[in-house]
Each structure stands twice: as structure tokens, then as C-alpha cells.
């Protein structure tokens, strides 16, 4: 280990402004344009901004971001499943909770949402960048029970493949998409892998034993060390 000394190292923390004017202004302009469509927003000063819009104004938010605010760069689009996994994964437990195991019923299945809230189990979220000013925003939308939302392909052609991936991984459908064929998975694949209730079967057959040395290291007769 090198000696502990505080030399003239350039400090990295820039004084995070308590009021982030650029991002607050973004939120204000979105509110002015979308009105009721903007359900919730969250600004982390100096870091990032999240916006949750209603389903009806999902496409309008994209158009406004592109033409009105200068967010011409499409970064990604994907989904989130907010239901906690019924196959619990606690590293303190000695086994994964397998099918047929009693511990499964004790797992809390209440849905808690993350930043900028939400309703329902599934959300679609997307990220846009403004390359001139170096800002980025995250837009979220809740899907109802029919798991449908407008497609962004008319506004950002790059969303084509992202929506195909989200559709096959979660089972969403995007109205207005030119062709929602599967992207990654072979055609015989059944199910939607990224949903929380899709099990990883190899773990059900042979659960992970946890952080232990399963076999003694050669020459370790007396003490086995936990790694």
C-alpha cells in the first residue's frame, strides 16, 4: 500500500449546485407543453433528471424533446418490471428459493416503484441526449394492463430495434411499429425472459451455494478460509 498523504491532488468534486437551473428549466418547459401529460418529475441537482409522462402523451413528449428542446440523440429504450421476483435471491440464504420450496411464499410481492413513481407493474423508459449542451433526460411511461404504448419510430428511427427487443423480452406491443419481429431470441422460444416470473432453470436445478469454499484448498488441513 502506498503511503497515505494528501498531496496537491486535484479534487474532483465540483460544488454541486443546490439549484440546477438548466434541468429545472427543462422540467418547466415540459410542464408548459404537456400540461396534464407530465405526471411526475425528479431532478437530481447536477446529475440527472427523470420525467414520467402519461401514455397518451408519450409520443408528444418525444416530438417536443426532439424539435422543441434539441434532444436529437436517441440513446436507448427499454422496459422495467417492478414486481419483485418470486424466486428470491438473498445471498445470506444458503440456497436459491426453488420451485416447491416453502420460503417462496414469504417473499414480499408488493410493487414498489423507483424514481419518479409509477402505477402498475411495467414501465417503459427511454433516454435522450442533447449533444450540444451535454444534457440527458430519462422519460418513463406506465403501461396499463394491455402493455401497449405508441411507438417512437416516426420520431427517432433508431427506436426500431430497441422496441423490438423490449417487445420480445417483456411482451410489450408498440402501436405504429413497422414490424415487431423477435430480435435476439430464436423463433421457437417461449416466454418473455426479462419478466421477473421467468425462472432461470439452471439455478432451479442446482442452486448457487453462496460465498463458501466448497472444497478445501490443497494443503489446508486445519483452517478453511471464507473467500
Amino acid at each position, binding site marked *: 500500500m502506498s503511503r497515505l498523504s494528501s498531496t496537491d491532488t486535484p479534487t474532483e468534486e465540483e460544488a454541486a449546485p443546490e439549484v440546477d437551473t438548466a434541468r429545472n428549466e427543462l422540467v418547466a418547459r415540459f410542464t408548459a407543453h404537456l400540461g396534464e401529460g407530465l405526471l411526475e418529475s425528479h431532478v437530481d441537482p447536477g446529475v440527472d433528471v427523470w420525467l414520467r409522462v402519461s401514455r397518451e402523451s408519450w409520443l408528444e413528449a418525444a416530438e417536443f424533446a426532439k424539435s422543441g428542446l434539441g434532444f436529437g440523440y436517441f440513446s436507448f429504450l427499454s422496459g422495467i418490471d417492478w414486481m419483485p421476483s418470486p424466486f428470491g435471491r438473498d445471498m445470506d440464504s444458503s440456497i436459491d428459493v426453488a420451485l416447491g420450496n416453502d420460503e417462496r411464499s414469504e417473499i414480499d410481492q408488493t410493487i*414498489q416503484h423507483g424514481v419518479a413513481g409509477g402505477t402498475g407493474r411495467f414501465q417503459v423508459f427511454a433516454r435522450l441526449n442533447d449533444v450540444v449542451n451535454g444534457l440527458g433526460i430519462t422519460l418513463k411511461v406506465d403501461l396499463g394492463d394491455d402493455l401497449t404504448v405508441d411507438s417512437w419510430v416516426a420520431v*427517432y428511427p433508431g427506436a426500431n430495434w430497441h422496441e423490438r427487443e423490449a417487445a420480445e423480452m417483456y411482451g410489450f406491443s408498440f402501436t405504429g411499429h413497422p414490424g415487431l419481429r423477435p430480435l*435476439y431470441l430464436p423463433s421457437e422460444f417461449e416466454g418473455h425472459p426479462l419478466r421477473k416470473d421467468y425462472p432461470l432453470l439452471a439455478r432451479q436445478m442446482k442452486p448457487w451455494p453462496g460465498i463458501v469454499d466448497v472444497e478445501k484448498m490443497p494443503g489446508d488441513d486445519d483452517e478453511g478460509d471464507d473467500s
Partner: protein
Amino acid sequence: MTAISDREQLSYIAAQAADARVNVELETEGMTLNIGPQHPATHGTLRIVAKLDGEQVVAVDPVMGYMHRGYEKLAEVRTYPQVTTLVNRIDWVGSFANEVPFILAAERLMDVEAPPRAQWIRTILFEMSRIANITLFLGDMGLQVGAVTPAFFAFRDREHVLNLIEAATGGRFHPNFDRIGGLKDDLPAGWITETKRVMKKMRQYCDEIETLVEGNEIFQTRTRGIGVIPADIGLSYGLSGANIRGSGVDWDVRRDNPCGLVHNETDWKVWTHPDGDSFARFWVRLQETRESTRIIDQLLDNIPSGPIMAKVPRIIKVPAGEAYVETENPLGVMGYYVISKGDLTPYRVKIRSASFNNISITPWLLKGVYVPDIITILGSLYFILGDIDR
């Protein structure tokens, strides 16, 4: 660095129009050509189904998923250090760079900052992985166009950089060296002097490639004016890295939005090229490699001393929250959106990989080009299959 002349552009368009006339007169039938998934020219298992009309492409449909390993699902059942091990293998050529945005996102959620020495060494290794990655590209681009020799040069010179990375981290690629709060170990003795020597060698290699490949007439004819991407189309598809800088957009996450990496402590510049064709992308990457060697030299002169690791608990539980960090990886902009609920394992990790967006432009870009140009354009966009398929 001259723009393609109007005369060259017009002659290419005239050749395509002549082809179209021939096709109409002869009434040829279209043909579907299947390139891949196992093909010496594609960088891995990418399958391209091309509908041809004579020698021209009418429509292109890339089929991927042959390397889809399910990273986002696997990350939900692994602890944070285990995810770091896994994530190395997304962009498997410049692999330290894959760990960095994930570790930075986890550090942002934990509200932990790595000590300055760790940040500097992280940046040095980050730039070295860029050199390791792009040197392969420079040699490989010759292979796409038909020249076999630069590939051997590339593998030989990459060995120097890989030796250095192995000396510091223990692995030639897949170093798995980054930890939440810092790095695993400090640098070995003599590493700094050796790195300076190797950086000089890499600059020589760049000069060699400049003379051998970039100055070659055949290479220039095959890449100038081929695969032109206008800047606004590139942005709306989400192209990043040298692909968008080769179209004239001055955007580099290292300069504009650095979180935890110390590039801005040095004096460096961002290279762009206005043309937007395959030659421009190659040229930008060549200049960037040289720039990386200069950045590393400057960083090596000023490494601060101090601890390598901040104080983090042994079993890492990251508090609840969401964070998105993106960095300028060798292939483009890579980002990790980490959602945590306070457990040992992340709740959801969305991996924004650069090559996925870079290749999504191919159905638009490859309309109307000739068949050999497909390979050249794909080579100049430079993707790694693990990055596309995750």
C-alpha cells in the same frame, strides 16, 4: 483530410445509375444472399440477409442473437462484484472499459468516491483498453478491404499493450480489476517507465498504419465516399463514438460529461472529420489512438499518491435508487442504468451498448451499395458482437 470531391461523388452515382439501367434492360431477378453467421468477414456471428438486384443491394436485414447470452437477466442474480466480472465480456476486445461505467453507477448510488490515485489509474487503464481495441480495428480494416498484412501488424503490436495490462491487473483481457470504491491493487514497480516506452512504440505503430493503410491508393478508393452518414440521421439512430465524430459532430463524453474519470486534467483534443464516409471514420480512430497515447503520457507524469481504495464495507449492499452513467468507450458511448432496491444484487441493469445503435443504421445505410462495399461499411462502423447481442 480533404473532402470527397464532387467529381468522385458524381462518378459513383453515375455508376450506380448505369447499373440500374442494366438491371431494367435485362430484367434480372432479385437474389437473397445470406452472409454469415459464420463468415470470415463478419466480426463474429452476425448474419446479414441481403436482397440483391444484380450487384446492388435492395434491402438488408441483419439477424442477430447468435451471441445473446442474457446479460440483463444474469445481472439480476449476481452480486455487484460478480456482475463486474461478467460485464468485462461485453466488449471483449477493450475490456477494462466495460467495467468502468457500471462501477461508477454503483459508486454514485452508494455515494462513495474513489480516491484520486484510483481515479487516475482507472483513466490510464481505460485509455489503454481503448488503444488495445482500436489497434485491432486499424489492422482489421485492412482485412475488410482485402489487405491481409495489417492484421498481423495489429496482433503483434497489441501484444505490447496486453503485456502491460497483464502486468498491472493479471489478465490480458477481462482484467476484472475495478472495485466499488477504487481498484483491486496498486501498480507494480517499474510499470510507469515501461508504459512510457510502450506508448512511444504505439505511436510508431500508428505512423506505420498511416503509411501502409491510410496512404494506400486502393484503400482510399474503396473507402472514400462509401457509406456516407449525415450527422442528423446518425444522431437520431444513436450512433456514437468515432462513427458520429466522423460525420462532423463534436461530442465526446470524456470531455462533456466525465463522472469520475480525469481526462480533463490533461491537455487533449477531440478529433472530428466532416465527410462522414468510411475513410473519415478510419481516420478519426487513427487520430484518437495517437491522442490516447498522449493522454496516457501526461497522466503518467502526474499520478497522485495515496490510497487505492475508499472505505467500503466488505459485503456491498447498494442503497435504493437509480443511476445512469455513460462513458466514451472505444466502440462508442456505453452506459449502464442501474436500479437498486437496497439488496446485494441489482434489481435491474439496462446495458446501453454502443454497437447496438451503431448497427441499427445498417438497413438505412446499405440501400443501393454494392456487395463488396457491405463488408467495407460494416468494417468501418466497427462493432463487436458481444456489444450488439449482450
